């Protein structure tokens, strides 16, 4: 019987620093064993527990898309014991993952609809997975318009700068990148995400909104979505909570009767309204 607590062995294929403050690092991991690679099937929005033996585990959203075969990408913010250890991993180092965990974005519901993606700061990781997936030639026709609004505090703190450049060039995807404060080289938009959303004013008709960002951004963006008449059932977000087992056994990450690891991390606002405000 499969032991859900045993990590799958992976190796660090590539490691790169994402942001100018060096706090965010992207690891690209490949499977050590062929069978594990074949068996690993995930959808955007799911996460894995990254495991460093001797240090511990921590949950991270999968930043790569299922369409990017072979390896998995994770972007890690250096904050504590495990994340610091992840930041010190060299290429070729061994690491473990447990996953895929969680429910992922409701891709099935998105069929035939417009998608509005709003991301802030380094919460953009699973949104990258979603955008790459939806904009892949095999999947692009499944959804109608894709609009992406992504904001960071400063230009240096934007993630996935290469992808952003590529997406800007696409005609089948509307990308608006903004920063809170520009610098002398920044030629793009300057403005807070909620204000940019108001400016872009996408239609809520037949549209699903997916929003991931720091609490302060969500606090001010959500009312704008209301003004644009997005109903709660069509606004999705991905929550985070301190996790250990990641499979709904240890009891830690619950909000009300739902577990963020097992019943989430993706929830609609309609679901969240019914839960206690304890996060």
């Amino acid at each position, binding site marked *: 019987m499969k032991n859900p607590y045993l990590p799958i062995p992976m190796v660090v294929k590539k490691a790169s620093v994402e942001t100018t403050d060096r706090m965010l690092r992207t690891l690209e991991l490949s499977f050590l064993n062929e069978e594990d690679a074949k068996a690993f099937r995930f959808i955007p929005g799911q996460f894995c527990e990254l495991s460093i033996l001797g240090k511990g585990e921590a949950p991270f959203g999968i930043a790569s898309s299922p369409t990017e075969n072979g390896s998995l990408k994770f972007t890690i913010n250096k904050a504590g014991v495990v994340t610091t250890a992840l930041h010190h991993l060299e290429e070729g180092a061994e690491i473990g993952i447990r996953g895929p965990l969680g429910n992922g974005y409701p891709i099935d519901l998105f069929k035939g609809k417009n998608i509005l993606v709003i991301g802030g700061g380094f919460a953009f990781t699973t949104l990258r997975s979603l955008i790459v997936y939806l904009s892949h030639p095999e999947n692009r026709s499944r959804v109608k318009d894709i609009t992406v609004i992504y904001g960071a505090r400063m230009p240096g703190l934007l993630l996935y700068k290469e992808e952003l450049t590529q997406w800007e060039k696409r005609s089948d995807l509307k990308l608006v990148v903004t920063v809170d404060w520009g610098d002398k080289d920044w030629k793009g938009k300057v403005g807070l995400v909620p204000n940019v959303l108001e400016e872009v004013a996408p239609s809520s008709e037949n549209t699903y909104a997916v929003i991931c960002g720091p609490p302060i951004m969500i606090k001010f963006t959500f009312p704008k979505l209301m003004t644009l008449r997005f109903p709660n059932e069509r606004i999705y977000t991905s929550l985070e909570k301190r996790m250990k087992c990641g499979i709904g056994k*240890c009891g830690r990450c619950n909000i*009300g009767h739902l577990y963020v690891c097992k019943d989430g991390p993706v929830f609609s606002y309609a679901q969240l309204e019914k839960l206690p405000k304890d996060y």
Partner: protein
Amino acid sequence: MKLKLDKKDFKPFLQSLIEEYDLFAPVQLVEGVSVFKKIDHPDEVDLSTPNPQKPAKELFFPQSETMFRYEKAGKKNQMTSMEEVKRERILFGARPCDIEAISMLEKVFVGEGDTDVYFLEKRKKTTIMGLGCNHPLSTCFCSSAGGDPFLRAGSDLFFVDLGEAYFVELLTEKGMAFHKNKFFKEADPKDLTLVKEFEEKAFEKVGYAIPVEGIEKRLDLMGESSFWDRIHEKCIGCRICTYLCPTCHCFDIVDEGEHQRGQRVRNWDSCLSPLYSLETSGHNPRPTCRERTRQRLMHKFNYFPKNFGQVACVGCGRCILYCPVHFDIRQAIIWTSPKRPKRFGGGTI
């Protein structure tokens, strides 16, 4: 199948079990303190403490458990998973409340989603010999929590102390495997009458109804009630109630050792600890005792019922007996309800 075991055969019976199985039974550590432990000799068994401090969940969900060992051998990490249970086990002397709790934990660990192999292995390899409660304590309220002092469900064999002998009922396939045990005799009608008498007496004692029924719906309406501002006041935030509770199942996973060699261990944890939900950023969704006490009570009486259809409390009363500040969960339940039971508690006048 209804059998009996004379008291004079009790120790030889246990000895026969010890030879074939790992036998776990209540053992006294010091006067008044007992736990379930593996015994090597029948003399070690102590049934004088009504219910051991540490609940029987320990056998399936130990306080500290190595999940796997790891060793860096050359380039690759070698991981050795530790869920194997080498020898068949017997749990003797657990009360119906503890046994009902094990069934509840099964729903969490084995029920839906991923299977917790550690719990499953232990559960599969254990035969449960339950023991009925002839003398429930005044702190017991099992019948309000959906159980009763002689609940057979969950036991493979069920024992009732009749004084000179034990009445033994074989309930499941695992239990029936013992029907040829040389120490068991046929029970006679007098024994069955005696069992009935004990049952009736015990039911009467725990029959004071604590309004557990309907508590899920009552708590649905109490999310922001001032009830939570008061109920937590005397709680000091230790972990006694969660560790001694037969149904509490929260755990922590930590790595011990270094990167060359070590193990990943899971330990009991408690939602009442401030560290429990503390995030690396410093943010804590449950910053004070108020939120944590609310979480515990809501989980037991609202969230768990929503997920599994029953309250996560078996009425064993350990949290009442051992709380250092005398928090009484029965009082908390009563305060959620307009109904008050007729007779409740003793007291110091």
